[in-house]
């Protein structure tokens, strides 16, 4: 049953990708195909990163409502980049090779995520409410610090970080595509390799220990993967609050299973379908200027409220 549904999702994604590449093309194909191809690759990377990061995080947190975005992971990344511009000045910031700033921001992100969220996840007594509140407060803190810093800096310098602070899908910076693809595929491969361990971790702390796993170490490994995946996707398209929640919930609906060997590809396919399909539909078919991020966050936000309310009642 799952195999058939995964095949159907792949087929739908294939149609969406074809639509994205060929619809509304004016001009020579030799220009359009590489130009759109790079953007498509970036969209696919982002889609897989977000769905995988969310799924991993939910497995470790044993919670279907929390996502890295809700916990403020992407706000953390935006803050790191903003503070770097704030303290270095845009001239210095831009003088450093882009690759160096990118990798530094990534390293800081991984460390900060481990420090901030590691302590939260490693408590033996799980307290979801406290985790959620801490996440929301941390997210608000990161956003406030970011906006404080942006107010203090030169408007010209602000232009440098503006790119990182808003979700956007039609202007994707493809300069770093190679490095990002490498990092992202590495993290995705690592996530795929620990899929069986993730299944066991989802059983809970005591059951995981009984079956010979070390939940503490696993949580740290997963947090590192999540931090890398979120950083890569935020660097490409900016923060998208509810995409992860939306696509992972859909994956649980379309392929209900406890096995990450099914959930990981299923969520990735749904995520890619949402981004590529949504972008094709809005941009090429409907010709709308509404950003896709607005539509996704609107739907995802409604889902978030619905999940919260039904869980509360139970």
């Amino acid at each position, binding site marked *: 049953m799952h195999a058939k549904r995964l095949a159907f999702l792949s087929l739908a994604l294939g149609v969406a990708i074809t639509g994205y590449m060929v619809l509304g093309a004016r001009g020579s194909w030799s220009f359009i195909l590489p130009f759109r191809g790079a953007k498509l690759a970036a969209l696919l990377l982002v889609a897989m990163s977000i769905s995988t990061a969310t799924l991993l995080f939910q497995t470790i947190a044993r919670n279907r409502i929390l996502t890295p975005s809700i916990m403020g992971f992407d706000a953390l990344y935006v803050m790191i980049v903003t503070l770097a511009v704030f303290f270095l000045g845009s001239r210095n910031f831009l003088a450093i090779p882009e690759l160096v700033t990118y990798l530094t921001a990534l390293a800081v992100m991984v460390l900060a995520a481990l420090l901030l969220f590691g302590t939260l996840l490693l408590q033996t007594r799980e307290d979801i409410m406290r985790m959620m509140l801490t996440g929301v407060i941390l997210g608000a803190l990161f956003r406030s610090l970011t906006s404080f810093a942006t107010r203090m800096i030169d408007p010209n310098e602000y232009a440098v970080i503006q790119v990182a602070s808003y979700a956007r899908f039609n202007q994707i910076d493809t300069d770093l595509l190679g490095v990002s693809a490498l990092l992202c595929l590495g993290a995705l491969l690592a996530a795929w390799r620990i899929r069986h361990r993730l299944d066991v971790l989802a059983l809970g702390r005591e059951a995981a220990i*009984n*079956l010979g796993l*070390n939940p503490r170490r696993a949580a740290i490994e997963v947090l590192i993967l999540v931090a890398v995946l979120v950083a890569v996707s935020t660097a490409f398209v900016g923060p998208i609050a509810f995409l992860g929640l939306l696509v992972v919930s859909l994956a649980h609906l379309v392929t209900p299973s406890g096995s990450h060997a099914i959930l990981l590809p299923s969520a990735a396919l749904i995520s890619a379908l949402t981004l590529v399909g949504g972008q094709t539909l809005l941009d090429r078919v409907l010709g709308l200027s509404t950003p896709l991020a607005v539509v996704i966050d609107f739907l995802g936000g409604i889902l978030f409220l619905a999940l919260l309310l039904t869980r509360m009642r139970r």
Partner: protein
Amino acid sequence: MISVSDLSYGYRDTPILTDITLEIPKGGVTALIGPNGAGKSTLLSLIARLMPLQSGRIMVDELKIGTCASTDLAQRLSILPQVPEIAARLTVAELVAFGRYPYHKGRPGAEDLAQVETAIEVFDLQALAHRSLDTLSGGQRQRALLAMIYAQDTDYMLLDEPLNNLDIAASRALMQLLRQMAETHGRTIVIVLHDINYAAAYADHIVTMKEGHLGPCGAPRDIVTDALLRDVFQTDAKVRRLDGKMLIDV
């Protein structure tokens, strides 16, 4: 053999276990009894490395808790916690299959599948095998968890009040199964029991605990007396002997 030496454990300033030194012999059923809050579950959790040791030493055969590889221990010792968390969306068969994870690490072989099959049969779960756990009653869920531990096929099994949620038939069936596993397969079973009648009837060896200290330990017929009930449990129930069996007033 499980040997515990000089084990102490506390939560902030409250001692939960004080200087426990204990040997649980290999083979047989050892029952851990005592009033609420005596530290029985804490002792079991420490042996099964569910909580980090604070002081003292625990050895399971040649494996030292805290330093031995967790995955080696998972092939030697299994635990059923008192209030197991449960991943509600799994089916019974999926849950039981996890019992084989320490051996196959995600790639079950034919032997693993056969063991899972046997565990499902032993706990009479065939009819429920494809139901998801959140549709089961408390007792059925308890049986599914027991089947998972059974499939793990370890020399040592630690069970924390496994009779919770089980009716009398299932309770007796489980105790008889544990006896049979101890006698014919040489398994070592350590079980926390609330009902002393079950302990007296099925255990080879009883360990009593009170307020974090060890009480009298020994064979049921030697230690289950009016005095034990008075000293350890602080109740004036009498022990009656009938046809060579012991019955404790309820």
